[in-house]
């Protein structure tokens, strides 16, 4: 296999010239790094013919914070807090990925209680992440109300999490060997109240946006991706499931107590933006189901197996662990030399792989569709660049 290496300069050279006044000419437009619809500092170079997209070239590195390099100087408990800052909307699940891998490598046995708490807080966070995705998608398509609705309900989730964890966004909660704090005495009661509150609100979301003809027209049959393409680009999470591939780590390789919960994996049929949107709505319903089944059965026990050890030694070798975050599979690869810091750490982040789907599905569409596509992929840019 040979790989062609081209520079951005070569790729953005105009190849066709207009030879009459009526002929069209290709040109290039930068979208980003400062653009409100890219949710951060993503830069995409668009090759356009009129308003039709010919090619999308994502250019990365505008928020590359060298997290993997910092990991090589940090103990495993310190690494956990760096993963908060990668995909900050699924920070608990990111913590979990590192903790899971370290526990597997260092042979740390967990109590039932830890697994229950972890699963419940992770599902709560999945709900708030999808609420943000839903609201921001509405905003990108030109509707401001969904943003207000989504954030109204998200604040209530962060209140519950804040009571236990003490943070609103960068949680740093799940640690190798347990969780940072035991749950607050009010936790169970508040979660139940929230579920009772949120279930009718979810129907309201659907009344507001799903049935709206403008939203339907902006999303249906836009950015269609079949399962094959999605798999070959390494897409995961709602993006992959919307393309009819029922791949969900919570079902396939249950970690935590997902094996005990009864829930369905939401999949789409056509793989267009609409399916990616609707899979998220359905996933919120399934998260509510999971929480409802678990919240009453949290067993007694320790929330941290040992005294919080600052230095956990991982035996020499290579380890891989992964979890299903709100945006897909986060894989953690550790190369250890038997010390308390890793020799090399690699994160396989979901957004990086989901981003490249735009290069496959956006060409042929209009610029406006690209906004719908990036909104439906629900990209978090620091997770792409790390």
């Amino acid at each position, binding site marked *: 296999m040979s790989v062609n290496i081209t520079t951005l300069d070569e790729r953005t050279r105009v190849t066709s010239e207009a030879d009459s006044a009526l002929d069209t000419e290709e040109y290039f437009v930068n979208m980003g790094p400062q653009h409100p619809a890219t949710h951060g500092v993503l830069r995409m170079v668009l090759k356009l013919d009129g308003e039709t997209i010919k090619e999308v070239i994502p250019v990365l590195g505008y928020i590359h914070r060298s997290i993997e390099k*910092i990991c090589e100087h940090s103990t495993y408990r310190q690494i956990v807090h760096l993963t908060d800052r990668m995909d900050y909307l699924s920070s608990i699940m990111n913590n979990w990925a590192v903790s899971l891998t370290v526990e597997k490598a260092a042979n740390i046995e967990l109590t039932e209680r830890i697994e229950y708490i972890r699963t419940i807080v992770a599902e709560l966070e999945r709900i708030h992440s999808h609420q943000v995705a839903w609201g921001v998608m509405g905003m990108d398509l030109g509707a401001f109300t969904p943003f207000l609705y989504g954030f109204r309900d998200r*604040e209530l989730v962060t209140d519950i999490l804040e009571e236990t964890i003490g943070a609103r966004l960068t949680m740093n909660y799940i640690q190798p060997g347990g969780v940072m704090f035991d749950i607050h005495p009010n936790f169970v009661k508040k979660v139940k109240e929230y579920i009772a509150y949120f279930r009718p609100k979810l129907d309201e979301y659907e009344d507001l946006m799903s049935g709206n003809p403008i939203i339907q027209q902006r999303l249906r049959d836009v950015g269609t991706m079949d399962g094959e393409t999605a798999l070959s680009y390494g897409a995961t999470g709602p993006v992959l499931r919307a393309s009819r591939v029922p791949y969900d780590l919570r079902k396939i390789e249950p970690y935590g107590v997902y094996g005990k919960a009864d829930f369905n994996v939401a999949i789409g049929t056509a793989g267009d933006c609409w399916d990616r949107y609707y899979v998220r709505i359905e996933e919120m319903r399934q998260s509510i189901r999971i929480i409802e089944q678990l919240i009453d059965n949290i067993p007694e026990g320790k929330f941290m197996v040992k005294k919080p050890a600052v230095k956990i030694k991982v035996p020499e070798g290579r380890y891989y662990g992964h979890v299903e975050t709100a945006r897909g599979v986060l894989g953690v690869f550790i190369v250890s030399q038997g010390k308390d810091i890793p020799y090399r750490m690699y994160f396989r982040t979901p957004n990086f792989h989901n981003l490249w789907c735009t290069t496959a599905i956006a060409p042929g569409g209009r610029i406006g569709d690209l906004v719908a596509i990036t909104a439906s992929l629900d990209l978090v840019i*620091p997770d792409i660049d790390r």
Partner: protein
Amino acid sequence: MGLVKKEEYAFDTMPGVDVVLTKIDYVVNWARSNSLWPLTFGTSCCAIEMLMATGGPRHDLARFGAEVTRPSPRQADLLILAGTIVKRMAPRLRTLYDQMAEPRYVIATGACTISGGPFLYHSYSTIRGADEIIPVDVYVPGCPPRPESLLHGLLTLQKLIKEGQTIRKPGVRHKPVISEIPEGVSREDITAEMVELLEHDSVVNIEETLGNLERPTGI
């Protein structure tokens, strides 16, 4: 000592006629400080808390007149720096700042834009503090700061603007940090004066306040 200025009454009414007397500087600064248009500039984690949650329904930046976020720097005069600045982004940030409308203000939120934050050590790509690239007016610490902190930061900035620029001396701005203490003044003097003022502010004498209301002091 006059190191910490008390706010004076800026409006005066003339008895008998419906006329309000004021200073043009005061009116301009008052208008400026209450209609800040922020630029939508969020690079990472802080953006969720600063721009989205603060602009959202609970905290509602609109109460302070700063909800009109503009995607174009040419229409904005407030830069809320939310998130880490890395070396590759630094020139773009400088460009954005230069393109903004004058007078422009900068609030640096989060540990990252103050000092590099969690990426202070061992990182080869982050900028250790946004003030290496652009001047910053107000710093809001936290990782990420709570939305309330940003609101406090915004109020601080509004206060600065109200006190700051005058028509006679454009470009002169009161800085939040006193870097050099004037000669003959010690740190204790400042603290004592602050304490006195704070105490004065927290104890409200209702009769005195009512008396003030009837008879506003002149400009």
